[in-house]
């Protein structure tokens, strides 16, 4: 089965990108830590603590990123009795995809959306919003679940989650450093003639400014890595998994009509969702920084798929997109 290699290539590339992102951010962290330590003339103890922090942070990122992503979005485990249909649909699509059943979560908001997260197919979770369950019928919901399980099967989920958390952390650090620098340092400047304090505040502001410049660049990197091609591919392979493109196409059409904004989503996490969580971005024109392709285009591509049993899996036959 030669074409199957394309799926393996795709998965290998996703794992590699994930590793590169983790290493890249560890290096950035290391540079900031070393600069801070040498500027403040902190001792060996600080460097040991800092090294430990980077190690622990990476372990948490790898093993708990899915829990963080679920918690940040306010997702809670879906009760099997209350959400019997959702559980049924996830089970049946998992059978179709040949994957173990992922964890099922519900987000209590009117904005219709969904995302998948986890380390890989054996540790995966799917979260859908209450609004999504309310507006979609069974077939459409099945299409959305199939799209998310396609992300799971392709190992998109780990990369998307890690990138979301790193993006979020960068923004958090930038805010912390800028505030520290201006507030603590700024207030002390006139009263305190100690030169060390003045230098420290300067360093903090500088680090904050570097991060402020870095953040948008990193967001652009995220956009490049989590290419919009990935969404087209998950649409196509989702449709292939359930051998039905119309459910997902109908679901996307309904999502396009919604004007509800997802409160918990930010620029760092937007790419994880099936459609942009910001209602204004769901429009027709694609711009460079958009996290998702235009919905009308995705629907048109889905409707042009006429699937039969003989059709090959898009993951297995098409070459993986070049970024």
């Amino acid at each position, binding site marked *: *089965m030669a074409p199957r290699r394309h799926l393996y290539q795709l998965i290998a590339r996703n794992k590699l990108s994930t590793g590169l992102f983790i290493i890249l951010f560890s290096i950035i962290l290391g540079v900031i830590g070393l600069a801070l330590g040498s500027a403040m003339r902190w001792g060996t103890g600080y460097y040991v603590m800092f090294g430990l922090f980077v190690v622990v942070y990476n372990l948490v990122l790898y093993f708990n990123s899915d829990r963080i992503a679920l918690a940040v979005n306010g997702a809670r485990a879906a009760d099997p009795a209350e959400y*019997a*249909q959702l559980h*049924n*649909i996830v*089970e*049946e*699509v998992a*059978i*179709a995809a*040949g994957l173990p059943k992922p964890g099922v979560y519900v987000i209590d908001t009117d904005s219709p959306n969904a995302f998948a997260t986890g380390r890989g197919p054996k540790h995966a979770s799917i979260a859908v919003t209450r609004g999504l369950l309310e507006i979609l019928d*069974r077939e459409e919901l*099945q299409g959305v679940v199939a799209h998310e399980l396609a992300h799971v099967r392709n190992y998109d989920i780990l990369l998307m989650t890690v990138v979301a958390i790193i993006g979020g952390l960068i923004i958090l650090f930038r805010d912390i450093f800028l505030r520290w620098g201006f507030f603590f340092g700024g207030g002390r400047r006139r009263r305190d003639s100690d030169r060390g304090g003045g230098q420290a505040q300067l360093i903090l502001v500088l680090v904050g400014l570097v991060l402020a410049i870095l953040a948008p660049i990193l967001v652009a990197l995220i956009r490049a890595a989590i290419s919009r091609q990935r969404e087209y591919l998950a649409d196509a392979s989702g449709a292939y998994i*359930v*051998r039905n493109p119309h459910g997902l196409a109908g679901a996307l059409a309904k999502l396009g009509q919604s004007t509800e904004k997802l409160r918990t989503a930010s620029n760092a996490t937007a790419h994880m969702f099936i459609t942009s969580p910001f209602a204004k971005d769901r429009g027709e024109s694609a711009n460079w920084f958009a996290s998702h392709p235009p919905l009308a285009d995705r629907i048109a591509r889905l409707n042009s798929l006429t699937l039969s*049993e003989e059709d090959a899996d898009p993951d297995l036959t098409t070459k993986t997109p070049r970024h």
Partner: protein
Amino acid sequence: MIALIIVLGILALLVIFFIGTYNSLVVKRNRVQNGWHQIDVQLKRRIDLIPNLVETVKGYAAHEKAIFERIAEARSLAINAKGPAESAKANNMLSDTLKTLFAVVENYPTLKANENFMKLQEELTATENKIAFSRQFYNDVVMDFNNQIQMFPSNVVAGMFSFKAGEFYTVPEAEREAPKVKF
């Protein structure tokens, strides 16, 4: 000396090829068995769901006796079916009778609104989907397995250890069409 090394090298490569092919055939055969087992689980689940469903419908439409009899008959055929081909035939018959039942239910609005019935209907829809999807998955693995058994050079290894091609779980053309119901 060089000739000996070359011969030994070729022999080593052949041994590696044999071991690799044999192991991959075993993995695929297990996958086929597992796929069949998955279908079986779902088929049994449907068989278990049917008595409940029939009882609920009987409460509202007791006089539709002909259909209950046909379901009972198809159900017992499905219970006793052995092997993919026979099972496929019996279960397709069961699917057809169930479709007729749901078409009949359309005439009883109070039954359709019954909460217990709606739950059963969702369970049955999910089980039908799981049957269809596990069948689709099973056929994919069978095809992969059969390809390796029949293609050269892996067919040599398959022949030596008598691996037998898997049986497809076929869907008759009738099932692809919408159910035909006469009133």
